[in-house]
């Protein structure tokens, strides 16, 4: 197994040591550029995605490479561009709709939930919607309640939408490429705090299947399931647990739909304890679904109830003094894990 700079392990088959390091943002950009070069049906539409290269600077250079017909600055019309994405996808294009902040996905709900998610099934399988909606999640930028949410649970709830939550540059690139090639709508959430995070990404082409969890660390005493931003918090916790003699296995599902239930259940059967961690609000969060999948599949093997940790059930407050309290941290994960192993 190779190790990322930050200590996250990745599947050995696809990694060799000494690979080049790029950032999460570069990985996303590379995935999109490669797919645009490979398939002329792919285009990007969103606010300030072209000339400015997106507000997070992730798409810088795409406009020069592919021109304004395929990298399109839109008005501030989230519902409109999502609708354009659906219509273009049904009629043979492969749109990537860019929604700057995950919070603004509430504005595209009808187009995504009632249109994109329903079209294939409702048309008796005649129509397909091969579109990607990329957006962000994550708090701690002192941006307050309307720019800090992690809303992936909303979309994970909907049959007909796939939801990807990459945590590493490697995963980001592989999942983005698969999302673009997928015949159906995929919503991909990128943690805006991760864009500068470095990690190994091979030069050669690869994709990652949607629906395959990744074991980021192997361990014996407890399974910690973590998504996106929380993979890093979990990793810090895993190291702290290690130092007190608790061996934790860290699993990143990478997609919430489809969900790799086998990997989750097998790990929990092995360790007999599980803790699920995600930055979405805890109430009705994806942790609930994952915990229930584990409880169902590993019931007879479990030594403790499955615990879940999410963001506090409050609108994200602005003040640093409060915001930090609302996001799960490593110490809290360690305490919870200890109580399960106690």
């Amino acid at each position: 197994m190779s190790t990322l700079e930050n200590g996250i392990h990745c599947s050995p088959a696809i990694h060799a040591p000494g690979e080049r390091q790029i950032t999460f943002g570069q990985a996303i950009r590379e995935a999109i550029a490669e797919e645009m070069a490979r398939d002329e049906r792919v285009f990007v539409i969103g606010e300030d995605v072209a000339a400015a290269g997106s507000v997070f600077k992730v798409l810088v250079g795409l406009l020069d490479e592919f021109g304004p017909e395929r990298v399109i600055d839109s008005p501030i019309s989230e519902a409109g561009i999502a609708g354009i994405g659906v219509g273009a996808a049904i009629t043979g294009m492969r749109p990537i709709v860019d929604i700057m902040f995950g919070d603004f996905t509430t504005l595209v709900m009808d187009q995504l939930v009632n249109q994109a998610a329903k079209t294939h099934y409702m048309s008796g399988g005649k129509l397909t919607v091969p579109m990607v909606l990329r957006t962000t999640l994550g708090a701690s930028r002192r941006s307050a309640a309307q720019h800090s949410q992690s809303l992936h649970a909303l979309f994970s709830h909907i049959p007909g939408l796939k939801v990807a939550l990459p945590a590493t540059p490697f995963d980001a690139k592989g999942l983005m490429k698969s999302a673009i090639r997928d015949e159906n709508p995929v919503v991909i959430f990128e943690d805006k705090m991760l864009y500068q995070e470095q990690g190994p990404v091979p030069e050669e082409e690869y994709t990652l299947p949607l629906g395959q969890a990744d074991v980021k660390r192997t361990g014996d005493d407890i399974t910690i399931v973590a998504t996106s931003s929380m993979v890093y918090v979990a990793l810090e916790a895993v190291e702290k647990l290690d130092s007190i003699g608790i061996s934790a296995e860290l699993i990143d599902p990478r997609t919430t739909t489809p969900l790799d239930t086998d990997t989750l259940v097998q790990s929990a059967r092995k360790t007999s304890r599980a803790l699920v961690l995600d930055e979405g609000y805890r109430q009705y969060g994806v942790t609930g679904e994952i915990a229930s999948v584990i409880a169902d599949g590993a019931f007879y093997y479990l030594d403790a109830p499955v615990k879940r940790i999410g963001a506090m059930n409050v609108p994200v407050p602005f003040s640093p003094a409060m915001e930090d309290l609302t996001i799960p941290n490593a110490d809290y994960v360690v305490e919870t894990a200890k109580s399960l192993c106690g």
Partner: protein
Amino acid sequence: MSETNDTNPSLNELDAEHWLQAYEQMVKIRTFEETANELYTSARMPGITHLYIGEEAIAVGVCEALRQDDYITSTHRGHGHCLAKGAALDKMFAELLGKEAGYCRGKGGSMHIADQETGNLGANGIVGGSAGIATGAGMSIKLRGTDQVSVCFFGDGALGQGLLYESMNMAQLWKLPVIYVCENNQYGEYTHNSKAAAGSMVGRASGFGVHAQAIDGQDIRTVHATARLVIDRARKGGGPAFLVCNTYRFRGHHVGDIDRPYRTREEEEEWAKRDPLTLLEDWLLKSKQAEEHVLERIQQEVKTAVDDAVAFAEEASFPSESEVDNHVYA
């Protein structure tokens, strides 16, 4: 109602004293914003903020025509609206610094200042997000039978949002007392509105039959005179209006946007010649409504007040941990 205001009789309706008050409000906003920028660059303020510098004539021109019990809704670039509607400097700065003494107890920050005492229903981080709220306030005014007015401030970027058009349509159908004030500062983030708004801005509202006009947003006298007319009209049951106030944000989209590669320095210099503060100063001096030393005194007083407010905010304490789930009902 006339589409132009060149010969507007109410242009000079304010007496010298009121113009000086408007001037003070504009200086207050300018100084507040320059100070907010300093707080950011010296890493004394969490997060980022969007400065209103260059657009002061709009907030002040409109709000000087409002009563305390009239409503406004504001935007991510909202400090000017809040101050113009009567917000206090100390609670504003305290909010920007995330302190408990702030308008929202540190929960909202720069983008979300609300103050029901001055009729401020809240700044909004969602572009166009307050169009419904302002219109709902108009509905409430009508149902309660008062003669208040509701003003919705938003940027030209919000013209991209469908909610605005649903709201204006209903406001016109039901003759709601709502004034839609589009602050057309030419850009939404890094995109010029020529690439974002097709057709006529004014025509968007006149298509619904809403009284609509485009005006010079740098000249407070024009803004105020026009605002007075449409506000009085709405108060009397005349229905909504839509004002496109042409203006320019003198700084970047937010405090971190310092290079501004999406626009030219020449364009900025052209607009700088029409600084709303200088325009008002020149007029006040030329029309002999004020002398230089009076304006200087106002600037000095505002500076002192701002310094005191910053000191207050910096000394104020952060919210305690228990504040985080205070006001949570579900």
